[in-house]
C-alpha cells in the first residue's frame, strides 16, 4: 500500500510535527513500506480472539483517597522554557 503526500501531511498535522518537503517524500516511502509489511497481519485469523492491551492480569490500581504533598511549583517549573509568576507562559490559545 502506498500513502499519498496528502495522507502524510495529514498524519504530520495530527501529530503536530512540522516536516520539510524532503522529509515528507522520504517518510511517504518509508511509512508505505512499513505499513505494507504490517498489513500482512490482516491475513491472520483473529475471529474470537480478545485483544491484549496489557500482559498483566486486570487489577485495581486505585489507592486510598488520602491527600499527599506534591513536588511543589518551584520543582515543576524548573525546566520550563518560559515562566511568569509561577506559571507557564504561552501564546494565546484562542484567537
Amino acid at each position, binding site marked *: 500500500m502506498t500513502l499519498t503526500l496528502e495522507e502524510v501531511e495529514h*498524519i504530520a498535522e495530527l501529530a503536530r510535527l*512540522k516536516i520539510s518537503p524532503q522529509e515528507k517524500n522520504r517518510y511517504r516511502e518509508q*511509512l508505505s513500506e512499513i*505499513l505494507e509489511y*504490517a498489513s500482512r497481519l490482516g491475513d491472520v485469523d*483473529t475471529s474470537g*480472539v480478545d485483544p491484549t*492491551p496489557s500482559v498483566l492480569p486486570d487489577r485495581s*490500581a486505585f489507592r486510598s483517597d488520602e491527600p499527599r504533598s506534591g513536588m511543589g511549583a518551584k520543582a515543576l517549573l524548573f525546566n*520550563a522554557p518560559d515562566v511568569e509568576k509561577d506559571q507557564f507562559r504561552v501564546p494565546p490559545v484562542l484567537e
Partner: protein
Amino acid sequence: MSKLVELTLSQIIAGLRKGDFSSCELTQAYLARIDHLESQLHAFITLTPDLALAQAEHADQQYAAWRVDSNVTLPPLAGVPIAIKDVLSVAGVRCTCGSKILEDFVPPYNATSVERLLESGMLIVGKTNTDEFAMGSSTENSAYRTTHNPWDVNRVPGGSSGGSAAAVAARLAPVALGTDTGGSVRQPASFCGVTGIKPTYGRVSRYGLVAFGSSLDVVGVLGHDAVDSACIYKLIAGHDQLDSTSADRPIPEFKLVDSLQNSLTRFRIGVPDEYFIPGMQPEVETAVRKALSEFENLGAEVMPISLPHTKHALPVYYLIAPAEASANLARYDGIRYGPRVQSDRMWDIYSRTRGDKLGSEVKRRIMLGTYALSTGYYDAYYGQAQKVRTLIKNDFDQAFENVDLIAAPVTPTTAFPIGEHLDDPLSMYLEDVLTIPASLAGVPAISFPVGFDKQGLPIGMQLMGPQFGEEILFQTTHSFQLVTNWHLSKPKL
C-alpha cells in the same frame, strides 16, 4: 590499567568489606578508565564524577564505622559504582533520553529503580547513551553521539541500551541499568558479550522511566554474568505503589546454587524452530546449538517446540509500540520542559519544537503510530495487532505447559558496522525479530554470551521463562557460566 576494574560485583563487595581497597580508589579506577576510553567508545551522554566521588567518600565513612562496630547499618552495595541508561531519572542530573527535545532537562526526582539502588549504597558514574527515546537497535539514533562496540569500534554496540552494554563490556562500570521494550537490553548484551536480563513486564517499577511503549517497557540489568545481574535485579525488582502497572507479587528470596552435579536435571528446554530464520549468520546458529548441547551435558532435556505465531511478532510490535509511543511522546511540546521554538501561535510552537527537536526515527514512529490509531484505520491496524498479540502470548503459555524454559538465538547476526542500516528503517527493525516475541508476551528473558564469530565478535543466546520466572533464568545461566568461559572474555581495550 587498574586491576580493580577487572573485579566482579561479588569480589568488589567482598573487597570493600575487608578493606582491601576503598570505594574512592575503586571509583577513581573506573573514572580513570572512562577518561581513557570515552573518546573511542562514547558510551556516556552525561558523566557524574563529582557526584560519584562524593558518594564514594560517604561510603568509605560508612565502611569505617561498620568495621569498628558491626551493628552499624551498612547498605548492601555501599560504594559500588553503576551506570544508568539516560531514559531513567536521576534527580538533579540531566536526563536527555538521547534527544534534543530534552537537552537540558533535569528531573526533580529519582526513578524508583534508581532510588532503590541509591538506598543500597550504590553510586552513579554517569548516564549512558541510548537511541532517542529508546527507539532503535544500534544507539545510532541518539541525537548526541553514536556509541562504538568495544569489541570492534567500527561496529555498533546494539541498542537501545548500547551505552550501558558497552560500558559494562569495556569495564567502565561493573553493572548498568538498561531498558528493554523490544529487545533493547538483550540485543546489546548479545552484541557486547555481556549478560542482560529483561524481567517480566511489571516486575520492576517504571516510575521515573521515560515512557516509550507503556505495555512493553521493562527496566533491565546488564552485568558480566548471571550472578552480578541477579544481584542488581533483586535490589530493583518488586511492587511499587507509584507505578500502577507494577506487579504485586513478592520477589522470592533466592541464591544461585554453585553445585554442578546434574544441576539442570529438572529442566526441560524448548527450542522453537521459528527462531532459526533464513539468512541468519551460520556461526550464530552453530554457537547456540553448541550451547544447547552444553545444557544437555548439565542434565537438561532439550526438545524442539513450535511457537507458530512468531513470524507475526515483528509487524505486531511495529504497530503497537509506535502507537503507544505516539501517545507517550505527545507531551514533548515545548511548553513545560525542554527547549521551545518560539511562535505567536500555540499550534506552531508544538509543530516547530517537535519538528525541529525530535529525530527522524522518533518522528517516523510517531507518524506510524498516529496512522495506526487514526479513524478508519484503528481496527485494521492497532486493533488487529492487539489480537495477534494475544495469539503470540498464547503460544508462550501453551509452550510453558510442556517446557520450563525456551532457548533461542538473540539476534540473526553479530554486531553490524556503524551506518549499515541507517538508510533502510525496515532492515533495522528486522534486527529485533528474535527479541520482540518475549516483549509482546511480557515474559522474562536473559541474554548471555555463547561464543564468538571468526571476526571475534560476541554471539549471544537467550533463555525465556514463564512470567515471574526470573530465578530459573538466572540459575540456568549461572550453571552454564560455571562450565564455560565465554562471559570471562574481555575486549582488547
